[in-house]
């Protein structure tokens, strides 16, 4: 591979360099000041309007979502409402915050957590045909009471909560460390996406 490009293709060189860079800086400074004057958050129009992220006052975005947790029978789910405060309007951030809420566990004492508190996401993205991809850091899944029962609960609660928060998402694929995995912890197959409509 070519290792000699870095400075050569930089776009500016020689004597013009430093003057141009100062000019660019002045412009950047001016733009920064303008951004401040124009008020915060104006240019941060949320993407993913299909999923209705609302712009609240004071430049922060809030979004009310339902987090589904397990009931004592280990079969059914009940939701708790959470207000997510977003610094920016991307669906990706919102989905990550939602999973973080699931990992924090329920407030009600008769409900149970379904997602390990250690969970980390190394990538999360949407495609434009109703698909969502969540990649978990493999090591962050490990310290948890895994069996078929708890693995199904995690899938069900995550798919259901994300499906409720993003009506445009029809199927969710779980990845581990960015790759398709046989399963999250040895039981439930994750080679195929989970259809939101089938995991209620």
């Amino acid at each position, binding site marked *: 591979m070519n290792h000699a*490009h870095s*400075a050569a293709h930089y776009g500016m060189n020689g004597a013009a360099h430093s003057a141009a860079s100062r000019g660019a800086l002045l412009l950047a400074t001016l733009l920064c000041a303008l951004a401040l004057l124009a008020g*915060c958050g104006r240019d*941060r129009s949320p993407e993913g309007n299909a999923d209705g992220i609302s712009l609240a006052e004071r430049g922060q975005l809030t979004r009310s979502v339902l987090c589904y947790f397990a009931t004592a029978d280990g079969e059914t789910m009940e939701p708790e409402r959470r207000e997510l405060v977003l610094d920016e309007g991307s669906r990706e951030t919102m989905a990550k915050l939602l999973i973080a809420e699931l990992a924090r566990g329920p407030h009600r004492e008769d409900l149970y957590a379904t997602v390990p508190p250690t969970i980390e996401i*190394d990538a999360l993205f949407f495609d434009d045909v109703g698909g969502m991809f969540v990649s978990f850091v493999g090591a962050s899944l490990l310290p948890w009471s895994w069996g078929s029962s708890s693995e199904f609960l995690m899938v069900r609660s995550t798919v259901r909560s994300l499906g409720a928060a993003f009506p445009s998402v029809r199927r969710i694929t779980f990845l581990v460390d960015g790759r398709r995995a*046989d399963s999250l912890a040895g039981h439930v197959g994750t080679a195929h996406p989970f259809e939101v409509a*089938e995991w209620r």
Partner: protein
Amino acid sequence: MSGKCAAPFAPHVSPCAAPLAALIVCALLMLAPSFARADIEVRMPASEPRTFATSEWDGVEYITADDVSLIYSASLYWRPELQKMTLRLGDFHVKVTAENPNVVIEDRVIHLAAPVLFRAGHLQLPLDLVTNILPDLCPYPVIWRPEPRLLTVGAPGSVILDVTRNMLPNGIELIVRPSGPADFVTRELDGEIQLVFPGSRVLNEQVPLLEDDPFLLDAQWIQNVDTLTLVVAKTDSVIDYQVTREGRPERIVVRLSAVPLIKDPQSTSGTMRALTSPSGRTRQIGRVVIDAGHGGADMGYQNGAIIEKDITLDIAKRLGRVLEEEYGIAVAYTREGDEEVTAERRTEIANEAQGDLLISLHVNASTIPALRGTEVYVHSPGIGVSERIERIVEEATTRYRTEVVGGLLDQSLRMIPWDAVQTGYKKRSGEVARSIQRAFNEGEDLPTRGVKQGPIGVLAGADMPAVLVEFGFGSSRDDAKRLIEKTSRERLAEQVARAIREASSG
């Protein structure tokens, strides 16, 4: 893989603070004469092209570590007190230290032309590291074009290790070794055979060629942004060829032959294989493949004396003994010792053993302390996945019949993805599962929670009826007490053996 997002739950600067900070930084940087900015464009799968700013410090172009983690979808661990950062990129840990030109990648040290810097509130990595060194660590193709300053990050695919060459009596074979199961398509174009691997890259591009090779004119790898293609040009002496995917070790074999090859029905491309419909099988269970869940470094559920991998192996051996000695049913095991076996390999062993039943043994667990009892699972991928698989099967079967075997094929042959084979056995698997659940009920050692269905990784590719049994919850004090006792494990094994015997005659 898209790099749209940063490390999880990373704190964000509020929208108000960002321009303010930028203003201060900009003002401060006015004083630094060697500073300048430029951009690179980055294309990532399933997202719009994005522009990332670079900065020049002391004549070297840098990009922030945060941006690199976005571009490569890498996890980033930053230890400010040590000024050290680890970037986890696929299987590799890349460690850098501020003001230091040495980059540690696993046990290798690479000396960069310029040091990593901590400037403007960010760890700054030399662009050269990002465009020329990190791409080699990625499991998917990343291509840097200096001219339009474009970095293209491909979709995750397979890594092809190398190609080797074998002589055959009337031809040769090229053996392509992927690092794991690789999806690919085969096509013939202008007399050349092309194996196209989406989103893949090759480690050793050398293809062994002989001078005046009687069968092989040329063979080479072509790396594109989205695909990796092995182009094989055959000589005129080759009158037939075959591309097969073979397992254990995973490999793809291209056979070039001077005589007609006997077509193996499994010779095909990608993850497909040919199968005849399972209807011809008898209901007799003459051989059971017993899969003791987990093993080796994968301990399964652990809680005090409960170590899932040990309990499953113990029950597996007890079950095998009862089946063989009391019912004369042959037994094969996916593991007989404390070893780690992948889900795919477990299924492969079962299929190679041509069992009449695969039974995977596990101990359940939950954070709900009151949950206890046995569960028996059968594989069911869901309606959406089934429909998609059905479409794939139809397309692949049609293509196979028309393109590969020219319509000469037995009409009962269908191309089925590996991991959809179990679907054809769902009814029979359900019968066996219910028989096991009944036996547990009668045994009264553990309460029963019924037969359940869902996508079960280890069962999906089994070319035989298959069930997964969860022998109670290790997380329940009552169940755990039973599972620790050898006598109750023996009774549970006897109950399962009896259920299999009953399902066999019923």
